[in-house]
């Protein structure tokens, strides 16, 4: 009787486990980010340059009319760039900012365009902060909680500051290689949406830190 009950429960749980959403990336992005400063030393926004992997680039370019085979001009890619930033809105541009620990909001992106460097598409866009901030510690994270998109800092100079006061110093933390347990927890995130106040996903975020003492 008890064994039978175990078995029944186990079957149900097995089926649940089978269905556990285990997303894995289908899009890889290597990125450069530049923090933009106003003359008065406040941070006004972030300028991103995201390079997509070759397979996703080919997918995104599908059906885009272009004059020369293997070449795409900025104009030919304009409508795709528009689509990109429109679609990214729903995902908060995968960019999360905190000023001295307080969450900041971004406005709609500006100055966006796509560039094609065979075999990759590069999406350039600037995310202005709704309200410019002048914190001691600014933290910007770039990640996709559902891990459909894998974000990675570019190899050379991934983070830069534009017009920052001289005492400001930018550092960045690579997301550590997730341990197996963390990976498993991460895999749950699209099955069990995160509490809005949760900071769990940050373990895996690409963190940019700017300190202005």
């Amino acid at each position, binding site marked *: 009787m008890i064994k*039978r009950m175990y*078995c029944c429960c186990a079957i*149900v749980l097995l089926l649940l*486990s*089978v269905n556990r959403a285990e997303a894995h990336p*289908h899009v890889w992005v290597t990125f450069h980010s530049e923090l933009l400063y106003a003359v008065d030393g406040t941070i006004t926004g972030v300028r991103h340059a995201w390079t997509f992997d070759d397979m996703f680039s080919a997918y995104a370019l599908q059906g885009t009319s272009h004059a020369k085979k293997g070449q795409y001009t900025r104009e030919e890619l304009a409508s795709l760039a528009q689509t990109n930033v429109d679609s990214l809105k729903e995902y908060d541009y995968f960019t999360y900012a905190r000023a001295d620990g307080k969450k900041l909001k971004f406005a709609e992106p500006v100055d966006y365009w796509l560039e094609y460097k065979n075999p990759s598409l590069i999406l350039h866009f600037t995310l202005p902060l709704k309200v410019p901030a002048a914190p001691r510690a600014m933290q910007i994270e770039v990640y996709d909680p559902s891990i459909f998109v894998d974000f990675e800092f570019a190899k050379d100079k991934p983070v830069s500051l534009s017009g920052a006061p001289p005492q400001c110093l930018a550092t960045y933390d690579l997301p550590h290689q997730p341990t197996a347990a*963390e990976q498993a927890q991460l895999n749950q995130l699209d099955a*069990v949406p995160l509490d809005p106040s949760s900071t769990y996903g940050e373990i895996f975020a690409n963190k940019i830190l700017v300190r202005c003492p």
Partner: protein
Amino acid sequence: MTRSRAISVTAVVAVLVAFATGIVSAWSAPFGAPHPAAAMSVSGLTGWIFAEQAAFYRSLSGFIRASKEDGAAMWELFGISFVYGVFHAAGPGHGKAVISSYLVANEETWRRGIALSFVSAAIQSVVAIVVVAIAAVLLGATAKTIGLTVHLVEIISYALVILIGLRLLYVKGRSFLVACRELTWRQTPELAFAAAHAAKPLSAATLQSSGQRPGAMAMRAGQCQVDGCTAHVHGFHCHDDHESAWGHAHGPEPTMLAGAGGWRRGLAAVVAVGLRPCSGAIIVLIFALAQDLFWTGVGATLIMGLGTAATVAAIATVAVSARGLASRIARTRAALGMLAMRAIEVGAAALIVGFGALLLAGYVASEQLWMFTG
């Protein structure tokens, strides 16, 4: 219960409980404190699968490029595609859960489980190829259009899954209620005594003795006798409305597999599941197309499907065996055991509806091709 059976039951239960522990800890993690120690054994495997499939997927583009110059690279590509398919089937959207639940709810055989897994994976590959062939090759559609098409097909697929689940839930829910009622009669001593003798006169007697029995019951009893269940002593066990009488150890009759209600019914489920193309396959196909290697992409996609089928079939076999085991145990408990089996079926049917609803609501699968492309 023999000793060896007891051991095998214990082993299976241990494996399943281990699974369950992993699930419980993993599910609770986002809300509570993580429990790395508890989740370690299972998530180690999950993490490994995750890392492997990502690595294989990324290597695909290199092999596709290479196969342009080098014919031998194509065979490597096909090999990698197969392995990727095997790993990727552990991911979302491949309908393992729906197929497994379906097999459990419908008391299907493992042979049919494997066949259905392969058919569903084949449909999935073919849908991806057809979508890309029509939209990209013939119409020159944009990624946005293709993404929307895939999304639409997905919605249809999920809606069909819900419909199939609801139908099963209705059928199985009725059987469950019937089993409930039978349990109540069975407990009257007079009938319990009669059951030990012969089923045929008994079922007739039972039906006559209870004037309030609905007509449907009489029909089922009739079916049971035709099915030959009366040859066995447990007459009450064969009242169900589908062909295989539960708890009998013999394999499927060929007629059972070929029967109109059999394959057709199973096909409806796998078509619903298989309709949804895998976004990885779509991307690979379009990438191959951009390299003027569409047919290489088609080959890779079909082989990926083969790999997916292997995993899904393995999982389906486990589900079917677990059910078989449960029903063998249940058989030793006569009516109560049967009630438990009916409850499992109802549960599995409810799970199908649940999965369908979750998928439709977008909570489970997150392979969103439209993340960047609208």
